[in-house]
């Protein structure tokens, strides 16, 4: 009992510390001060009256949402005496694996730097700044020469690491206990009505619960913003503009990686090519956003460090590189692309993406024992396949078509670029609703189950890839439902 209490008070202390000094805090203070002018606020019962005022004016709800947001993102501390790296990753061998992975990426980036004699970062000359500012809205045209650049890594590089295949992690239950349906007529109207009510109440927790059953298209943008606690305040817009000016002033090597990635993936995509220019506006700003560094507190990854020229190893001259500590890989822009269907205002689009990244996407390209981490997803996928479709599993292994080789890229990209957009958004609804990426592994297994008959007949990896090459016609929810609730074990 005592331990529970001390755990709880630790959590409370941590949340209070994080919210202190936030803009919400100052807004609450301001509101409280303004409320003193209200006739209902009496000196004798000052504290109670202000509390009531904050409740009725909706500010208490905003505070609740912020607390809920913090709870969602940060894991509870394991033990008061635990060192900070345990919050990043409790398992030592995992930390080691992530460490060697990071070394590899940095080596690749540094060697590209030296080969091409391009600095990691440099200030842009004034004329270049002016030019970039002018074409900020259409960076898709006139691309720079990218022929010498190559992506620092791609999902397939990640997969080659065999260390984690022997790991004995307990995958456990999915926790998907409400059925996710394609809404039939009688359900849809009521569901929409409830959704509107949830939005009117502006309650994050209720929204998160609600989207487990899927979002109506017209409400999705607002519901996701509510769950992610994004309100696009003036200071947020200002922050985005500040990032934009950082882009204009300084040129980073990773910018070229971003350009290349967009040109190779989203620009050629039937659904997302329209939004190419938005992707630059989001990703270039993202790499300069130092607030993203905060997520490394609970991520197993560590941001790479770079040193001012000539001061190698001297800590005072160390900076994180890129400023947000995240090196983009091939396909990274596909995390942003689907969001363009929901948000057409760059600063809001930016904030939604950033929040999605620090809550979910970062786990897909770092090695950790977290249940939503890519390692656990791989294990979950293989376990599900082996359990529910043992014949298929062994058949594919026999012919040298290890299932994970095919499904890995789907999961790392959270299926973006593989599913039709409307289906993808339904899938991401559940990611938000369950605050977990496990559904990606389940869907991957469900896809194999769906195409099992054809897969049983293939005799090579290439043929298996061909059967699973086109997922654009799949309907996600029926697949998941059948797999979860109709399979006979």
């Amino acid at each position: 009992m005592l331990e529970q209490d001390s755990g709880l008070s630790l959590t409370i202390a941590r949340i209070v510390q994080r919210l202190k000094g936030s803009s919400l805090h100052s807004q609450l203070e301001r509101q409280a001060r303004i409320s003193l002018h209200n006739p209902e606020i009496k000196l004798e019962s000052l504290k109670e009256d202000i509390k009531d005022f904050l409740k009725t004016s909706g500010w208490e709800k905003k505070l609740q949402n912020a607390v809920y947001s913090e709870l969602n993102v940060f894991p509870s501390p394991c033990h008061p005496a635990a060192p900070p790296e345990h919050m990043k990753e409790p398992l030592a061998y995992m930390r080691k694996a992530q460490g060697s992975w990071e070394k590899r990426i940095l080596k690749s980036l540094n060697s590209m730097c030296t080969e091409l004699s391009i600095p990691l970062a440099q200030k842009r000359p004034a004329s270049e700044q002016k030019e970039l500012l002018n074409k900020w809205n259409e960076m898709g045209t006139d691309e720079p020469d990218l022929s010498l650049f190559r992506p620092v890594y791609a999902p397939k590089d990640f997969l080659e690491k065999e260390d984690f295949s022997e790991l004995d992690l307990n995958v456990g239950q999915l926790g998907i206990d409400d059925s996710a349906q394609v809404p039939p007529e009688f359900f849809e109207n009521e569901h929409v009505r409830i959704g509107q009510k949830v939005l009117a109440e502006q309650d994050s927790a209720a929204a998160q619960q609600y989207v487990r059953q899927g979002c109506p298209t017209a409400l999705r943008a607002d519901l996701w913003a509510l769950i992610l606690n994004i309100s696009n305040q003036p200071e947020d817009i200002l922050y985005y503009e500040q990032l934009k000016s950082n882009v204009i002033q300084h040129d980073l090597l990773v910018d070229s990686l971003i350009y290349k990635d967009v040109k190779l993936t989203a620009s050629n995509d039937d659904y997302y090519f329209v939004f190419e220019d938005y992707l630059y506006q989001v990703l270039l700003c993202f790499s300069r956003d130092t607030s993203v560094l905060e997520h490394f507190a609970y991520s197993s990854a560590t941001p790479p460090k770079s040193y001012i020229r000539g001061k190698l190893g001297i800590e005072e001259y160390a900076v994180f590189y890129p400023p947000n500590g995240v090196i983009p890989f091939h396909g990274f822009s596909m995390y942003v692309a689907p969001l363009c269907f929901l948000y057409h205002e760059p600063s809001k689009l930016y904030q939604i993406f950033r929040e999605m990244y620090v809550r979910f996407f970062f786990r897909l390209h770092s090695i950790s024992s977290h249940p939503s981490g890519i390692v656990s997803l791989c294990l979950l996928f293989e376990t599900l396949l082996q359990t529910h479709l043992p014949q298929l599993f062994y058949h594919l292994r026999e012919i040298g078509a290890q299932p994970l080789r095919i499904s890995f890229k789907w999961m790392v990209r959270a299926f973006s670029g593989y599913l039709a957009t409307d289906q993808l958004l339904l899938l991401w609804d559940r990611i938000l609703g369950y605050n977990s990426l496990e559904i990606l592994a389940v869907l991957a297994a469900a896809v194999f189950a769906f195409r099992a008959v054809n897969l049983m007949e293939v005799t090579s990896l290439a043929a298996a890839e061909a059967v699973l090459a086109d997922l654009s016609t799949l309907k996600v929810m029926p697949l998941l439902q059948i797999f979860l609730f109709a399979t006979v074990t």
Partner: protein
Amino acid sequence: MAGKVKWVTDIEKSVLINNFEKRGWIQVAENEDWNFYWCVIHWFQFVCLKPSRNIIARMSVQTIRNVFSVETGYRLSDDQIVNHFPNHYELTRKDLMVKNIKRYRKELEKEGSPLAEKDENGKYIYLDFVPVTFMLPADYNLFVEEFRKNPSSTWIMKPCGKAQGKGIFLINKLSQIKKWSRDSKTSSFVSQSSKEAYVISLYINNPLLIGGKKFDLRLYVLVSTYRPLRCYMYKLGFCRFCTVKYTPSTSELDNMFVHLTNVAIQKHGDDYNHIHGGKWTVSNLRLYLESTRGKEVTNKLFDEIHWIIVQSLKAVAPVMNNDKHCFECYGYDIIIDDKLKPWLIEVNASPSLTSSTANDRILKYNLINDTLNIAVPNGEIPDCKWNKSPPKEVLGNYEVLYDEEMAQSDGSDRDLRSRSGQSTGTKGNRGRDSGKPVLTTWK
């Protein structure tokens, strides 16, 4: 041997030929007996075959009107069908389309129909779906009057008889079109030949932009008969995006990559991509609009699009030669402005069957397939006397846009404008079926 359909075509397009061959149809030459003729119309010329005399004739607009009439003796037999109506140009020539719509509106106004209601500015509330247009040189003075009301406006000049964006340019000064002035001393351009005729329309300089780029909609509409009007809309239309960011800036009026969405133009741009071809499905558009603007306004937009297509067909129905040997698959070009109002730009009689991407090829193949299934039932030798009412199962990706017969037999009295708010939660019924309420008032 059971007769196999004999087909003729004047274009070599795989999407067509594959469809004929898969039905086991037999290709014949133009001067042989044929059952099915798929031809491409160049402006108002029409290749006509008279089976018994083995003559191929290219007709001018004067004789076309008579080509199927009893008097001249040119007759198609019951087992022959063609993919065009003889005077389709009433709809598909830019100047005639506008003329017919204007005439239609005036007629409605004269008979006091509520459809012709105007607002306080004198604009039609329900029938204002074509940008203000004038014929040049005939209406030059009227145009000048209109131009002077808004001297900063931009206008678009389009040759009446050309396609694929050819010859189109934008103007914002009267001096740029002096040549079309009726009293112009340089009368070399004032030619009686319709080839030189132009239409000038108010340019929609506030198109809806997505990703900062202008786009238009290409929708396919199949008409099997005009009287009674029976038409089908192909569900898989697409948006055509410009490769360059849109700007209304006057310095870019000459940049066709900014303004003209025709693939024929865009594919020459630096940023043209051959994988997606700058095309988006209509369902993507719908998803985007629903997600960013809401369901009601999106439904309203699509309802309006269907409405203007039907109205345009109704406008030409009285003057169309409703020959029973004919059907036609039109390519409708529609632009949506930033207030989510759709505008009818033009109707094409021979929408391009060229495929710019792999997806495009599949789409056009299926389009022809579904069109043939409706126009030539069961793939058998046609009998043009049939009732042209195919069963639901063969529609494929088409859905009924308007069926006049069914609309008239449906006796319930409905409110004229109830369609916009009528989504009753039943999916798929957006007033596109026979129950288009407003037209129960039509004779």
